[in-house]
């Protein structure tokens, strides 16, 4: 009997676990370790953040799904990986600390034959002084709870606007190395939409504060679309929407400090600025989860397995090189851990070789460089491919070829909501192919025939459809595996 352990139950971990269970007989064990008791369809947190959905509509408990599917579930966080085991047993092991199941605080060491490391990011609010819900200043939409809190604060701001008091709202990134600019974009335009629906848009000044050097970068270096006979940049396309909706963009920013009334930030030219605000949603930068690694003699090998960012190193080219020498082939294909052929890292948890967007520094040396996004669709695809690799290794043998899912050959769909409503909502519906641009293959970095972006009501219908489809899929309802990642 093989034992497969999956760390994390987000889009990647949960997808991997379901496919592993589906493809492996019940003679093999699949265990999920996650500190959260609920699964969260994070793309819809935006709508929770503007009170269009209650929190309960974007989460569901994991335990019943795993029970039904015959997957063991431990509500715990991983604290250490021991890929060569310990003095008692040479099988790989993970140290865990329970966070629920009436065992909070208890620790254990569990063994594995195969390990899928899908822990997702640590939300590093502490990287910016005063950032985040715990500091009491700015809000976030990274979790369902954060999004609900954001919706309450936004509602209070709209109430003040209705009383006739002008308000300044700021949405964007709270640090120079944030990712998820797409989520910030979505929340900005959903806030704009809500302000208009409330009839108070004219009293609100809405800023979009971003670490992107140009609008439309989205952490992927922007895109080029064919539109109306011209090659259009995503920069022009998004600038149009910002102008149309009177959202004031501030680009190339790194936030240094936030108080209850002021955001202090630096721009790429090295100048410092203060922006007073009434409501702010600023995303945190990500790091890897605080998981250490030890060899069989208990020596710390964290630096061998993990990059300084805390994400797990995989089959990528981590050789430091300037932007001009980056290649699509720098990116991983199999997501297998460096040095261990039974460990894989997927989703946000794997260490990228570098950014996708051109990294920049201010004259003061401040890094203002969007981190590469690992969005839902690629994360699910990676997870499924790793699950299939593990299944083949179990059924065929250790020489079974690994399935490959490089971001430089994979397309991704991104639907960025710009306001809800079955007849008056809209979204920017984008396809980028591939995710990581390949300038050796395509002059614009991506395939112009399949890379596209358009704003319209159909985008909102698409995002709504994805909301229902992916929650259905994640609940492992009949036919779930027919819904593509």
């Amino acid at each position, binding site marked *: 009997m093989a034992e497969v352990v999956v760390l994390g139950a987000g889009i990647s971990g949960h997808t991997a676990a379901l496919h592993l269970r589906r493809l492996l007989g019940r003679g093999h064990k699949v265990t999920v370790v996650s500190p959260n008791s609920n699964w969260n369809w994070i793309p819809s947190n935006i709508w929770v953040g503007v009170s269009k959905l209650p929190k309960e509509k974007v989460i569901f408990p994991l335990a019943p799904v795993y029970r039904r599917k015959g997957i063991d579930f431990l509500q715990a966080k991983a604290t250490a990986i021991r890929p060569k085991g310990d003095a008692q047993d040479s099988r790989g092991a993970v140290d865990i600390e329970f966070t629920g199941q009436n065992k909070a605080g208890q620790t254990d060491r569990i063994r594995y034959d195969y390990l899928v490391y899908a822990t997702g990011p640590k939300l590093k609010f502490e990287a910016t002084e005063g950032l985040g819900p715990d500091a009491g200043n700015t809000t976030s939409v990274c979790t369902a709870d954060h999004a609900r809190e954001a919706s309450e604060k936004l509602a209070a701001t709209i109430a003040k606007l209705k009383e006739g008091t002008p308000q300044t709202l700021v949405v964007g990134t709270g640090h120079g190395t944030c990712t998820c600019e797409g989520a910030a974009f979505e929340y900005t335009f959903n806030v704009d939409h809500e302000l208009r629906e409330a009839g108070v848009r004219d009293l609100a000044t809405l800023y979009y504060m971003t670490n992107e050097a140009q609008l439309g970068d989205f952490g992927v270096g922007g895109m080029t679309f064919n539109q109306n006979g011209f090659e259009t940049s995503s920069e022009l396309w998004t600038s149009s929407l910002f102008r149309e909706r009177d959202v004031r963009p501030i680009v190339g920013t790194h936030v240094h400090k936030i108080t209850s009334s002021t955001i202090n930030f630096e721009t790429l030219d090295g100048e410092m600025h203060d922006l007073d605000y009434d409501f702010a949603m600023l995303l945190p930068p990500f790091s890897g989860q605080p998981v250490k690694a030890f060899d069989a003699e208990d020596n710390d090998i964290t630096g061998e397995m993990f990059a300084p960012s805390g994400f797990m190193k995989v089959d990528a080219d981590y050789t430091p090189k300037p932007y001009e020498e980056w290649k699509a082939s720098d990116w991983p294909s199999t997501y297998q851990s460096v040095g261990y052929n039974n460990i894989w890292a997927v989703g946000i948890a794997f260490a990228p070789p570098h950014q996708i967007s051109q990294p920049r520094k201010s004259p003061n040396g401040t890094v203002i460089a969007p981190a590469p996004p690992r969005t839902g669709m690629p994360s699910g695809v990676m997870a499924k491919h790793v699950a299939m690799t593990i299944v083949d290794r179990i059924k065929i043998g250790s020489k079974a070829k690994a399935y490959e899912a490089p971001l430089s050959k994979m397309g991704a769909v991104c639907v960025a909501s710009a306001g809800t409503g079955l007849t008056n909502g809209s979204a920017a519906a984008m396809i980028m*192919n591939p995710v990581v641009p390949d300038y050796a293959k395509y002059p614009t970095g991506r395939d112009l025939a399949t890379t596209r972006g358009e704003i319209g009501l159909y985008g909102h219908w698409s995002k709504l459809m994805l909301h229902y489809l992916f929650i259905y899929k994640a609940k492992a309802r009949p036919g779930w595996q027919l819904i593509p990642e």
Partner: protein
Amino acid sequence: MSEEKTTTPVPVLDLSGAPMPNVKTLKARYNLLSQFGKFVGFNLSIMRMVVKEGEH
């Protein structure tokens, strides 16, 4: 907090050169028939991409 503010000049991007959609474009974004056609086309594009990637 929202009365007189003493902020330093905030470098807002100049968008005066960005194209503005005309009335026809704005109406088309919410035209149910044409948007339904785009909805179908968009999802077919996704399926084509998924099937093609599955063949690799």
